[in-house]
């Protein structure tokens, strides 16, 4: 069964029949984390790097921003029995339009914000597929922790993370 994560949204699950999916990441980033021992996983789709942009909105919906969404994602998984040092962490998205790096670079900033939060908290990224001009759909299979991305295009290339 597929459970869809919208923009600025997250889903946590320990139901083995579920595949958590988020569609068409552009500059946004999808973060999938999974504890293989208790088989608890979560997928976050955040939009923007930093909640200082609009603190009120970040309180209404922490999933909009990297700095409020990522801690929430981990906490929610811990509540279901996941443990930090066992977490597998996969990241996808953060695409950019063409042109110089100085403008329209929300995708890069999203990625930078995520890396900073992970570094501060000693979280390692196990695998990632970020940047470029591609549109990606991201999947997390709760039974196995398998994560893959589909590159949107004619062949719908599938890449395991």
């Amino acid at each position, binding site marked *: 069964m597929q459970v869809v994560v919208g923009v600025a949204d997250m889903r946590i699950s320990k139901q083995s029949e579920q595949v958590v999916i988020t569609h068409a990441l552009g500059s946004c980033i999808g973060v999938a984390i999974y504890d293989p021992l208790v088989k608890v996983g979560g997928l976050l789709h955040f939009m923007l790097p930093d909640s200082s942009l609009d603190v009120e909105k970040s309180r209404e919906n922490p999933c909009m921003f990297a700095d409020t969404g990522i801690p929430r994602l981990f906490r929610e998984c811990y509540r279901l029995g996941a443990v930090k040092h066992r977490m597998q962490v996969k990241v996808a998205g953060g695409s950019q339009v063409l*042109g110089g790096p100085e403008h329209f670079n929300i995708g890069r900033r999203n990625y930078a914000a995520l890396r900073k939060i992970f570094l501060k908290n000693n979280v390692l990224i196990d695998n990632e597929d970020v940047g470029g001009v591609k549109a990606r759909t991201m999947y997390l299979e709760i039974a196995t922790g398998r994560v893959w991305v589909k590159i949107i*295009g004619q062949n719908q290339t599938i890449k395991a993370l």
Partner: protein
Amino acid sequence: MSLVPQVLRSLKNLPPFPMVAQRTLLLLNKPEVSIQELVEVVKFDPAITANILRISNSAYFGLRREIHSLQQALLLLGTQELLKIVIASGATRLFSAPTPGYFSERQGLWRHSVSCALMVDLLCRELSLPDHATGFTAGLMHDIGKVVLSLFVEQKFHEIMEVVEQQGVSFQAAEKIILGVDHAEMGGEMARMWDFPDRLRLAITYHHLDKPEAYTDDLILLVYLADILVLMFGQDLGSDGLAYTGYPEVLRHFHLRERNLQKILLEFGSAWGEAQIFFGLMGQKDGIQRANRG
């Protein structure tokens, strides 16, 4: 081998632009549109009237009272909003064919087009530009060329993508290299055949800013920027992904910094949620057929 003659031949089968939408486009050119004129155009089309009532009562407008009649909708929403609804209802039929060269989802192009129209609206508000139905319409129609070019892009997708990846050019530039014509030019040609107002036709033709003429009208720059922002937002992305060029001079022109863009994306997230009713217009087969009667 150029596909241009083949592509142009396929235009011979172009369906007519829906009558009601056509008449409404002409109203866009007038500085003032009276409620009576608009009623005259739409009143004989029950499907469009039904859409007007549905959309007027949706979360998108958030009106407190329920609207039961066309007159009442016009009075509460004003002519500009009504023009947008009428054009969106009328245009659905043109987007009803799948465009597998660009989107695997049948409604992909429609959803992208509506998103772009909504983004133009939002930019107009953010930039305190007059919120005119022309902008919305240009956003809605900017990629109409993809309807026809899809077939050819589908055949040559790998060659086009190879050019994008190896030369680092935009998807549109690669279309031009491989097919001899790109979706923006194609849309411009269709707009000519449909007798669209000039401003609208030029916004379609130049929406990727690949010619100096593009800079003659803010409308074109707005449609360009809206398109780029919608691609960044994601959701209804096609096989061309984000392979279009970001031009910083457009941001400077509108005095926009990156923080402004972030705010706009944040706003758009909410507007997009409330506007689902527009996406749903495509679902009504009956409404689409009727909209073409005129």
